[in-house]
């Protein structure tokens, strides 16, 4: 569950990024210049922060070394205006009804088998699991990291900028070093690598397919990754794939992000 949760939170954070230039298309900033690089990072932050409502039906496939692959289906709800997220597992039967509710910095887990809510502490999520503290936080790359332009290159068929992000002195983040491969034409992240304090590569994420749709709640076009793949680089062989099958960008009900709502749906 922690691996899936990590991937989900991260996927949820990335998904439905508003297309910043949708209304009045403008040339993408040039990351090769210091000002352009900062602008690219700001756009990435802004897209992740989103400020729209959305609901998505997701499929999750988790592969862990020496374990049977697990496939789940779940509904993901997100409202960035007040930083709320909710996941409700619908399949398989054993997982159906389990849910996570994030209200501000607190993440709660509901298990219908016991009917109890548990607060997932920072330590629980981190200790021994693949869950990352940063997965829960809103993107603050521009505030927390110093960006360095590493070059323009090809990633498959895409022309990308490779950007390195090193944490600023005195700032605590889950990964002190992050590398991004950003699509030059859309400014979407296509690949992300996260490194430990020891400089060891810990996780690589790929976002091979992005789709642009109109958000009623945002009143603008937004991008979302249809497919996300996360690879554990320490425990080779562990990976998670998230597919976003259906997405609904209409405004969500005001009272949706509550324990009572999730409990009622779990039943």
């Amino acid at each position, binding site marked *: 569950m922690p691996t899936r949760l990590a991937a989900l939170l991260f996927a949820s954070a990335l998904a439905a990024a508003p297309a910043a230039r949708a209304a009045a298309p403008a040339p993408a900033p040039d990351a090769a210049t210091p000002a352009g690089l900062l602008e690219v990072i700001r756009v990435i932050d802004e897209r992740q922060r989103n400020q729209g409502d959305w609901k998505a039906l997701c499929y999750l496939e988790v592969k862990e070394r020496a374990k049977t692959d697990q496939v789940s289906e779940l509904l993901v709800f997100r409202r960035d205006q007040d930083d709320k997220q909710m996941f409700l597992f619908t399949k398989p039967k054993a997982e159906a009804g389990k849910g996570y509710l994030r209200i501000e910095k607190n993440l709660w887990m509901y298990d219908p088998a016991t009917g109890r809510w548990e607060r997932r502490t920072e330590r629980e999520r981190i200790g021994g699991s693949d869950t990352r503290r940063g997965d829960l936080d809103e993107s603050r790359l521009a505030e927390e990291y110093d960006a360095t332009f590493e070059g323009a290159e090809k990633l498959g068929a895409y022309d990308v900028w490779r950007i390195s992000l090193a944490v600023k002195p005195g700032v605590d983040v*889950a990964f002190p070093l992050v590398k991004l491969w950003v699509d030059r034409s859309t400014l979407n992240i296509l690949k992300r690598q996260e490194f430990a304090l020891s400089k060891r590569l810990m996780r690589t994420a790929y976002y091979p397919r992005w789709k642009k749709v109109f958000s009623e709640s945002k009143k603008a076009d937004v991008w979302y990754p249809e497919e996300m793949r996360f690879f554990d680089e320490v425990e080779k062989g562990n990976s998670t794939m998230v597919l976003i099958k259906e997405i609904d960008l209409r405004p969500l009900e005001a009272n949706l992000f509550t324990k009572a709502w999730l409990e009622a749906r779990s039943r």
Partner: protein
Amino acid sequence: MLLVDLQVAGRNLTRHTLRNLLLGAALAMVTGAMVLLGALADGIEHAMFESATTLLTGHVNVGGFFKITAGSAAPLVSDWPKVLAATRAEVPEIDYVTVRGRGWSKAVSESASMDLVLGGVDMSREPGFRKVVIPIEGKLDDLMQPDTVLLFQGQAERLKVGVGDQLTISAPTERGVNNTADVRVAVVARNVGLLSTFQAFIQGDTLRRLYGLNDTTTGAIHLYLKKEGDAPRVAARLREKLAEKGWRVMEPDPQPYWMKLFQTVPSADWTGQKLDVTTWEDEMGQFKQFIFGFRALSNIVLLLVMAVVLVGILNTLAIAIRERTREIGTLRAIGMQRTKVLWLFLLETALLGLGGAAAGAALASAFAGLLNAAHILVPEGIQLFLMQEHLSFWLAPGAIAVRVAAVALLTVVASVFPALRAARLKPVTAMHHIG
């Protein structure tokens, strides 16, 4: 006089050989079972104490938690040299002290991974370590080198590694930054029960680097006392004195530190440093409960068996008195007092009880000694509970003597009623008895 009485009692016992042999054998069986079960429980407790107070805890520990935010917690003692100096000043009972790093991490090998509780050790300051940790591969001194780790046999098998192989240890620092350390397996040691399923040891400085700690921060100070029995008293005093000296000290809570780390401490609404003074029994609370349960269960079984044996004693003595009614009448007619008759019967049963119990204890001790010598391997699932790799009985002469005395005493108590009946018989009635 007592010698004569003993002679009479002994001869009476030998006159009814078969009946007394059966009764003695029953008493021997009960005593033997008591000795064996008691020695097994003592063996578990002894093994637990030996291994726990070396691997996981001192007799008393000054540990603690540092919380950057209310929802996070790290098992740390900051400024440990100052804490140690204050502790030494207040605890003259200290024999020696070790300073241990504490951590929780994921160990990843080429083919497997597992969660490990890490102890950061400085082998030059671990006098008790070598008594308990027996290397199968590698040398304990190799653990002095940086980037080395000691695994127990079961962990090495699970991770499919041996001495010289590389492992990646992954853990977040106290500030939540993910970090890794590539370490070499320097020692594979023999399992020491439950603790060796989750506890591994890493060179102290490597653990500090992994968790981003400075030299004056550690996991816990383990105090080893001259007398381990002083631990609760010393812990209580230390809590009070450290609080008086300005440290924030947690209330006593008999749980291992990692349970507090994951359950109680992160949900507590405070930040900063708090010290936590515990005894080895606090850190091993659940295992102590298991031993208590084991002892309680075995005692219940033994009580039931003992009850059956007591009914047997009552019955046998009742038959004996009936058979010897004319003899009692004759003794009373030639002037023997009632108290003397009572005394003779009690002495008989005391001799029987003592003989049977002693024989049972001797046989059980010999059997336990044989089992100890045979080094019988305990199945892995049971090792977790017995805290032992090999079946081991702890034969303490004092405890055995107490059990023998208890059985003998119970036998005598059971014989009081039939002996009283015998003493109350009227000489004339007794002599006319046809039995």
